[in-house]
């Protein structure tokens, strides 16, 4: 039967101290194994799975194994694990091997290698994601995109209104300061989120490029040199598009949520936000409401 392309998980799980267990009996063609085309590569091949066959007991060659696992059960566990990993990744939570065993694999721990192998195969074929062991020491896995990293992914949905936490964070900082925010101040805040100018981030990519170029091109931010300062320093202002699309009240709500405080904790800003909201209600809704220059608190 055709060989499966080695998956990164193969090597990874070999390092785990999963007790050595005999492989489940080789699945006969036409049952539940995916039909792998010999020329495997980036070209797509459909994942074909027959409807669940009547469960077959696998012949354990090791007499000490009391628990049987049929091919159907293996596949079901692999599907459960696939979903589990996808949801954990969606929530940006750590995918921890002991959790996998506790929450999904359970008493089938002896077959964790086969289950993991099947799961990573499905994830690669259907989602284009690699289940990779990122740290043997902490036994953490991560879902890594197998497709070309595409920085535009995150802005694909954001062109209309990038209400990403990142942009809101910067806009809030500028708003609270009441004037431009120096780049150094912005990085101080972003550092709290674990973002550094020199580090590539799994979601945001090149953060510095994102905030100094992309957000600026989209008119959400302005990035300008501070006059008369040597060596050169830069500061951020609200862009015209931010002023049009984002209200001060939204910024106050964001601040309240993030810092778990009442918006009244920023009294003059909150008053300003209420003023703007009232003005918007009264005026023509299409009117551009410029951010008024405010004095510092």
């Amino acid at each position, binding site marked *: 039967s055709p060989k499966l392309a080695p998956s990164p998980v193969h090597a990874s799980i070999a390092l785990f101290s999963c007790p050595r267990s005999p492989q489940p009996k080789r699945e006969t063609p036409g049952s539940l194994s995916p039909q792998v085309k010999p020329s495997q590569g980036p070209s797509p091949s459909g994942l074909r799975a027959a409807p669940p066959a009547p469960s077959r007991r696998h012949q354990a060659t090791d007499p000490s194994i009391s628990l049987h696992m049929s091919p159907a059960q293996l596949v079901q566990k692999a599907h459960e694990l696939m979903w589990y990993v996808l*949801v954990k990744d969606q929530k940006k939570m750590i995918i921890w091997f002991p959790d996998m065993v506790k929450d999904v694999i359970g008493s089938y721990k002896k077959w964790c290698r086969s289950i993991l192998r099947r799961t990573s195969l499905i994830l690669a074929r259907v989602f284009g994601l690699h289940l990779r062991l990122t740290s043997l020491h902490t036994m953490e896995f991560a879902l890594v995109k197998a497709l070309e990293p595409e920085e535009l992914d995150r802005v694909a949905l954001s062109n209309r209104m990038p209400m990403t936490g990142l942009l809101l964070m910067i806009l809030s900082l500028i708003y609270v300061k009441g004037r431009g925010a120096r780049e150094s101040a912005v990085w101080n805040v972003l550092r709290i989120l674990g973002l550094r100018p020199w580090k590539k981030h799994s979601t945001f990519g090149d953060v510095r490029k994102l905030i100094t170029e992309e957000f600026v091109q989209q008119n959400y931010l302005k990035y300008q040199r501070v006059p008369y300062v040597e060596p050169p320093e830069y500061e951020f202002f609200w862009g015209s598009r931010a002023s049009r699309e984002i209200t001060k009240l939204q910024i106050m709500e964001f601040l309240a949520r993030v810092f778990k405080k009442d918006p009244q904790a920023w009294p003059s800003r909150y008053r300003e936000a209420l003023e703007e909201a009232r003005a918007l209600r009264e005026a023509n809704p299409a009117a551009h409401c410029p951010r008024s220059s405010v004095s510092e608190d």
Partner: protein
Amino acid sequence: MQGSTRRMGVMTDVHRRFLQLLMTHGVLEEWDVKRLQRHCYKVHDRNATVDKLEDFINNINSVLESLYIEIKRGVTEDDGRPIYALVNLATTSISKMATDFAENELDLFRKALELIIDSETGFASSTNILNLVDQLKGKKMRKKEAEQVLQKFVQNKWLIEKEGEFTLHGRAILEMEQYIRETYPDAVKICNICHSLLIQGQSCETCGIRMHLPCVAKYFQSNAEPRCPHCNDYWPHEIPEVFDPEKERESGISKSNKKSLRSRQH
């Protein structure tokens, strides 16, 4: 369910990226889904014609079927906006939530869910939910804490709050409809038009059948004398407008500023 011939679709990198991004965002409105689809084509297959969204998604779903997951399309109950999410069909519990919340928080959600399903209006009052705090499984939870947990549910789009009352978010209905119908088969309400789960809607005062607000809008569109499809009695409620995505985009109303135009109709 699917037709008798199960034609297995083919996954390309366009579909894979689409799935990845849909999963990342959790739940998306149709306009965003269309843009996502166009983006994925642009990245991987510039010259190809973009499939009609319905065909595109059916193609992916035919591959996902064997994995017991599906890209499901639903419609928000209050204003008829189409939404999409990747859901697990094999689940028998509220699985996507399970990773986010502690045992007692999940139980609070279950209690709120039961009250919502049993209610006449599809809304459960904050007071009634909080009164059940003593019955929760797991660590003991104070009422004050429970209030914050309810807000967490709202922020994560599992519940919607209106004037101190809670109902299910469109996302929760999309992801949990199967679970709800299996768990509360006697208490669930069904829409007379689309036969899906109904939480909020309008009901006929004579025969009691219920309809979703968007289903009412479509069914009675440009009908001067709306009558109950079941008993033919005069339909006593205000007929909402059919959701028009084109109108939405033109007016450029920011979502968070837009007040719901519908009022509850019971």
